[in-house]
Each structure stands twice: as structure tokens, then as C-alpha cells.
């Protein structure tokens, strides 16, 4: 079945060529973003474009990291994304346990609700959320973002946690219950510790969704000290002159957490994204 000799070499060259064309398509924009972040702003559109310019420097990064307003965007994003991740994990562990280990009326309809909640358009929820947050005096607070982001993260997290618990043998928690302990002990002492890989997948995906969210952050916060990184990037664009080098530097800094998570936990990432769509 495997081609041999010259034919194999020709095919190898063909595949490498096709892969390289694809790599330029995928990678060049990212490469250009990186090199632009080291340029001085007037050099961004110089002709002909150069990869390394005369004023190559880290100035754009220094400007961002020494500006308290912009540093605050990052702090806000971390606070919101980490809180959402922690809360989502706890709620999803509890729900996943119930859906995996118990039989009860309304289980199937509840499962269907959780799956279809993913399809509710954010724009539909935005208007009542805005009304709710203003009424509850939560408008322009971390709490407004943390609470509303869970509507995106929970359905996926529950589906995945249920799936993960389903792969673990029921004898494990039965054994604990025979020793007289309750289901709560079985869950936290036995199931959660051996579900770490599943939790990492869910956690990373949740963090990413929260870190990237734009629409709710745009609408449910107002003042600069409550804005997150995606909105911060947009604010840089709105000012009278475009500071392209700073925008690119901020973008690089803004994608670093996700990039680092990806490089360290590649396996979990791929497991997570495929499990979410394929098995539910």
C-alpha cells in the first residue's frame, strides 16, 4: 500500500509544498503582527515593507506595561477569567456528577436544555442582561461579567464533565459508599482527584472563552478601570491616531496566556475542543 522509491519522494515533496503554502496562509499574519510590534509607529506602513526596521525596539511593550490604565485591562481580564474558570469548574463538577451517577425524572429534558442553551444568541441575552445589571446595581462591576460569562462556559463544561465521569467505573464510588461515606465524599475524595485531565481540559477551555469575550464586556462595563483586554485593544483603535505598534504589542501580550496554556497543555486542548463538539 505504501508507495516506494522515486514516487514516494515526489509525493513527499508535493506534501511539503502544500503544507508550506498552508503555513504561509496561517502563519504570515501572525508573523507580521509580531514584527510590527517592534517597529516605530511611522515605520508601520513604510514602502517597501521591511521585517526589521531601523528603529527596531521594545518601546511599544514598555509603553503598554508602564501605563497603569493598560495594565489594569490585563488585571481585569485575569480577575474575570480566573473567577469564571474556578466557579464554572465547581458548578460543572457537581452537575456532571448528578448527571453521570444518578437516575432521576427530567434527566433527559435537562440534558437537552443544557445542549440547546449553547445555541441561544448572546445578542438576545444582552438586552435583558443590561436591564438586569442596571436594576441590580451590578452594571460596570466584575460581578456582572463573571456571572454572565458563565452562560457561555457552563453548558460546555457540564457536558464535558458528565462525559468524563461516565468513563470512570461506578465501582470506585460504590466502594467508598460501602465504607459508610456519603456521595459528597465519593465525589471529592475519589472522582475529582482522578479526573484532573478532564478538569484541565475544561478549565483551559473555560479560561479561553472568558479571556476572549467581547460583546458583554463592551456593553456591561463603562469606565476604563473595568475594561478587559479585548475592549482595551478596541479603545487603542478608537483614539485620534492609530498607534499600530502599541496595538500589536498589546495583542501579543493579550494572546500570551492562551498561547502559553496551549504550548504546555496541547494534548488537553485538542481533547477538550473535540470532546465538546463531537461527544455530548
Amino acid at each position, binding site marked *: *500500500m*505504501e508507495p516506494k522509491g522515486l514516487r514516494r519522494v515526489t509525493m*513527499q515533496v508535493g*506534501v511539503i509544498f502544500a*503544507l508550506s503554502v*498552508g*503555513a504561509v*496562509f*496561517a502563519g504570515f*499574519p*501572525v508573523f*507580521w*503582527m509580531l514584527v510590527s510590534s517592534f517597529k516605530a509607529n511611522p515605520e508601520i*506602513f513604510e514602502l*517597501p*515593507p521591511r521585517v526589521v526596521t531601523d528603529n527596531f525596539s521594545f518601546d511599544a511593550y514598555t509603553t503598554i506595561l508602564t501605563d497603569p490604565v493598560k495594565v489594569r485591562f490585563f488585571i481585569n481580564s485575569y480577575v474575570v477569567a480566573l473567577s469564571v474558570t474556578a466557579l464554572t469548574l465547581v458548578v460543572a463538577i*457537581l*452537575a456532571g456528577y*448528578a*448527571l453521570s451517577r*444518578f*437516575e*432521576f425524572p427530567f434527566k433527559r429534558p435537562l440534558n437537552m436544555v443544557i*445542549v*440547546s442553551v*449553547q*445555541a*441561544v*444568541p448572546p*445578542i*438576545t441575552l*444582552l*438586552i435583558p*442582561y*443590561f*436591564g*438586569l445589571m442596571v436594576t441590580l446595581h451590578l452594571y460596570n462591576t466584575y460581578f456582572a461579567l463573571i*456571572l454572565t460569562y*458563565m*452562560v457561555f462556559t457552563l453548558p460546555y463544561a*457540564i457536558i464535558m464533565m458528565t462525559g468524563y465521569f461516565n468513563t470512570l467505573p461506578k465501582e470506585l464510588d460504590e466502594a467508598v459508599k460501602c465504607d459508610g461515606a456519603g456521595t459528597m465524599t465519593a465525589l471529592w475524595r475519589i472522582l475529582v482527584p482522578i479526573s484532573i485531565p478532564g478538569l484541565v481540559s475544561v478549565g483551559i477551555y473555560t479560561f479561553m472563552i472568558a479571556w*476572549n469575550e*467581547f*460583546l458583554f464586556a463592551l456593553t456591561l462595563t463603562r469606565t476604563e478601570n473595568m475594561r478587559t*483586554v*479585548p*475592549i482595551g485593544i478596541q479603545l487603542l*483603535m478608537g483614539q485620534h491616531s492609530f498607534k*499600530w505598534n502599541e*496595538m500589536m504589542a498589546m*495583542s501579543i501580550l*493579550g494572546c500570551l496566556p*492562551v*498561547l502559553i496554556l*496551549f504550548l504546555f497543555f496541547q494534548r488537553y486542548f*485538542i481533547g477538550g*475542543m*473535540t470532546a465538546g*463538539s*463531537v461527544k455530548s
Partner: protein
Amino acid sequence: MTTIPKAAQRQTPLRGPTPRRSLVPLKRRLEPYGYLSPTLLLLLVLMLVPIGMVIRYSLMDNVITNKHPEFAGLSNYAEVLKDSVFWVAVKNTAFFTGVSVIAHLVLGMGFALLLNTSLLGSATKAVFRVLYILPWLFTVAIIAVLWRLLLNPNGVLNYILQDLGLANSKVEWLASPSIALFSVTFINIWSGYPFYMMSLLAGLQGIPRDLYEAAHIDGAGPINRFIHVTLPQLRPIIVSIAMLDIIFTTQQFALIWMTTGGGPINVTEMLSTFTYKLAFNRYEFSVASASAVTIFAFSMVLAFFYVRYQKARD
């Protein structure tokens, strides 16, 4: 769910149950609801109540800005459906979604097949895989500014095109009414294919090798093997991710908002940006709610098919 047999029920009194004992089954039965209570509470606060609110808003004359709104029937819906921009947005959303989903599938499949080749070593493939997944690691806000840099009339793309003789003037990719919709669709294609690629790659690696060997013995060439072995095996994955992609792409907001804002002259207006502007630029919350409910109804139809498909696979 489980009905206790009559015999067992009759046996229980013989064992002399204490009051505490009779509580145990009830506690057992309530236990799952205890575990589900945070979820149910959040579903109530974040789903049921808001959806009720938005439907109510859509039937009032104007809410949030008006302290004493009055019932207005379906007039807000009539206003939305009579608005020509709404229908432009429907058309644009359909084009944007249709082209994106097909291109995502074609590119995702192509790259997944290339990355699944047995002709290259796993280290080489790993490097390419990381490169190919890059667009997926960026948030939409970053993708938007990045492409505004690349597609700037004075930007690097126009320079390359002019240098190769493919364009003779500076193309206004995002500002020209005849091109802008294609440009934002292209950006969305760039940012969305890795999801397909990774899912399909995982699927390809799960196809049993003997299926290909059997097809080979039957004399099937590479194209026939792809059509008769690969595609049927990947069908469940393809249908699932395509459905999810349709649902999410029709809701795309941030990319449009940060590249064209729906312009120039509405050529890239989507249902999401149309509704957002009604609510937060023009403060017509009731008309915006009517539009939001219309989009919601449409999404629920998509969700119905998605749930039914997932159930059929179980």
C-alpha cells in the same frame, strides 16, 4: 424511575422501619437535585428570566429609557420586519455564514488530510500542526486589529499584490462597498478553520486501518478511498461541527464590529450588529428586543436540529 415491587413494599414493615429509615429514600431521591441546584439556579437567572424579559420588552412601546412603558402588541416586530436594513442583514448573515462554513470545512479537511500523511515524520507534522492552529489561539479583537493592519490600503497585502502585478491600485479591502463583505468573510474563514482541522484530524486518526486496506484490495484509488471510506467515517464529526459552526457564525459580532462596524453603507451589516445598534446606539430597546427575539427563534430552530442529531447518535 424505578418502581418498587409490591412484594418488597410489603416486606418493609416486617423489618420494623424507624422514621429515619423512611427518610433515606427521599434523601436519595433529592440528592441529584442538590448537586444540580447551582446549575438550575444559574439557568433560571441567566436563561429563563432574561428570555422572559426580552420577550416582554419586545411587546412594550419602549423600555429601559421609558419609565412607564405601555403594551404595544406586535408593532415592534412589524417595525423590524419592515426595515430594509434588517433584510440586508439577513442576506449578509446568510452569505457570511454559508461561505464561512463551506470554506472552513474544505480548508479544515485539506489541512487535516495533509497533517495525517504517512509520508512525513511526526516531528515535522507537529511543527506544522502548531503553525496551522495559530489563528485559533487569538481572540476576535486581536484578529480584527491584525487584519486591519494587513488589509490597510497602505498595508503589506496591497504591496505584495502590486509587486506581483495582481493589482494596480491600492485596494480598499474594508472600506469599498463591493469588497468589504468578502473581506470580513475571508477573515472569518482564516480564524475559524483550525477548529475543523483539529476535530477532523482526531477523527481521521480514529479510522481503523483495515478499512483502507480492504478498499485497497478491492482496487480503490486514493479518491475512491476518500469518498467511500474517509467521508462516511467522518460524517458524524462533520455534521456536528458544521451545525455548531452555523450556530456560532450567525451570531458573530465582535469581528464585524471591530473591522467595518457593519459599513460601508450596511454592506457588512449582520443581524447581531443591526440589533446592537438599535439597542445601544439608538436606544430603541423595544425594537431591538423584537429583533433579538426573532434571531432567538431562528437559533432555536437550528438548536432543535442539533439536539435531534446528537440524540440520534446516542
